[in-house]
């Protein structure tokens, strides 16, 4: 199991106050901003930027950069690994 991805799921649920959702409900490749996925919106995207700084020490200064990175748990994990390496 990829611990970074599992941590991310927990952090997203915590940061976005997602009720009635557990990490197991979030597949690694589910589209976070799609209505058939998690259905997140533009404000949630900004909360994900806060999350990256708070839990991973990564500063995102251009929210457009987030758009690509926040597609799914897979892309978020990839983005974090790239930024940290």
């Amino acid at each position, binding site marked *: 199991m990829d611990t970074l991805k599992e941590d991310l799921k927990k952090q997203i649920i915590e940061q976005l106050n997602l009720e009635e959702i557990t990490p197991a409900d979030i597949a690694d490749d589910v589209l976070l901003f799609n209505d058939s996925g998690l259905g997140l*919106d*533009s*404000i949630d995207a*900004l909360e994900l930027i*806060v999350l990256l700084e708070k839990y991973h020490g990564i500063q995102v200064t251009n*929210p457009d950069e987030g758009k690509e990175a926040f597609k799914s748990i897979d892309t978020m994990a990839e983005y974090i690994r790239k930024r940290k390496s």
Partner: protein
Amino acid sequence: MTYIGAEVIVSPLGETAEENWLALSDDQSGITLVEDVGYNQENIYLSKILSLSGQNRFHQLVVKALSEIQQQIDPQVFGSKKTLVILSSTKGALYSNVTDQFESCVSAIVQQFGLANQPVVISNACISGVLAINTAGNFIREKIYDNVIVVGCDIISDFVLYGFQCLFAISNQPCVPFDTTRNGITLGEGCGAVVVSASKEIFHKQPLQLLTGTSANDANHISGPSRTGEGLFRSVTKTLQMNKVDKGEIDFVSAHGTATVYNDEMEAIAFDRAELSHIPLNSFKGYFGHTLGAAGVIETAASMQMIRNATLLKSKGFAKPGTSKLINVIEKNEVKSLQTILKTASGFGGGNASLMIRNL
């Protein structure tokens, strides 16, 4: 007829409408770079009243504006049972006490100015000011009050600055409404005031006519402007219809123009749909910054000064069109007699509001 006059503007550019007008027509802006104020100690462009100090800045500004109004109308008006004060603000004195944003200030002005009626605070995000003036006009039309003094005031605070910072909505340059390089708002603080009355006689100086307008919700998103401009389009259309004014009669549009990418785009779309895109238009945000709950009152007062001084004031900061629908943004000051003007506002919560002022 509903009259509007005795306009007051307290801003970094001056403490009366006339002082502010001199600065505006001289191309001055209240916006300066303030050091270390951001959440991460960034330097931020703000339109801040640097001379105003102390704990009760909100209260001080409201008192300044009301005292100035006192000089401009029949002194009997303040204590009359037929006079109401409406205060328009988003965050009031939140910076000093989060659970007493308005109440203490309101009680103090009731005492100090001998008001007969409990003032009403309108807190409807960035449309508060225009909504407050419309509310005043409605109260006069229905003969519930004879005079309504509308005061719009908001203060720059860490709260509001950090909030807009975390939305990535603060401009890294003095804001440039409708321009292609716009990237966010510049916050401002200040206080505007106008008197709306059924009587022409209470004014020392000739008032103008208020054509009371309407508000309309976008029903789209609590913090994102509509992509179709639906609410603004509806509000403007209804305001024109209700007052039986043809769009050809509008000489000038004082737009909201916050200088965020999406807001200005939304407004351009709405004005295009309303067939108003050829009418000279500006945003005052390049001069005053975005004064939130005060903006509608300050900008209405500044538009009244444009009518009085027969001048189309340029939209400061605008150089190159940056909206998908072309609108007629004023690029340089021009002497022109203005008969009827339209003022609009849009804000969080999906609100949109508009009103018109006519020269007598």
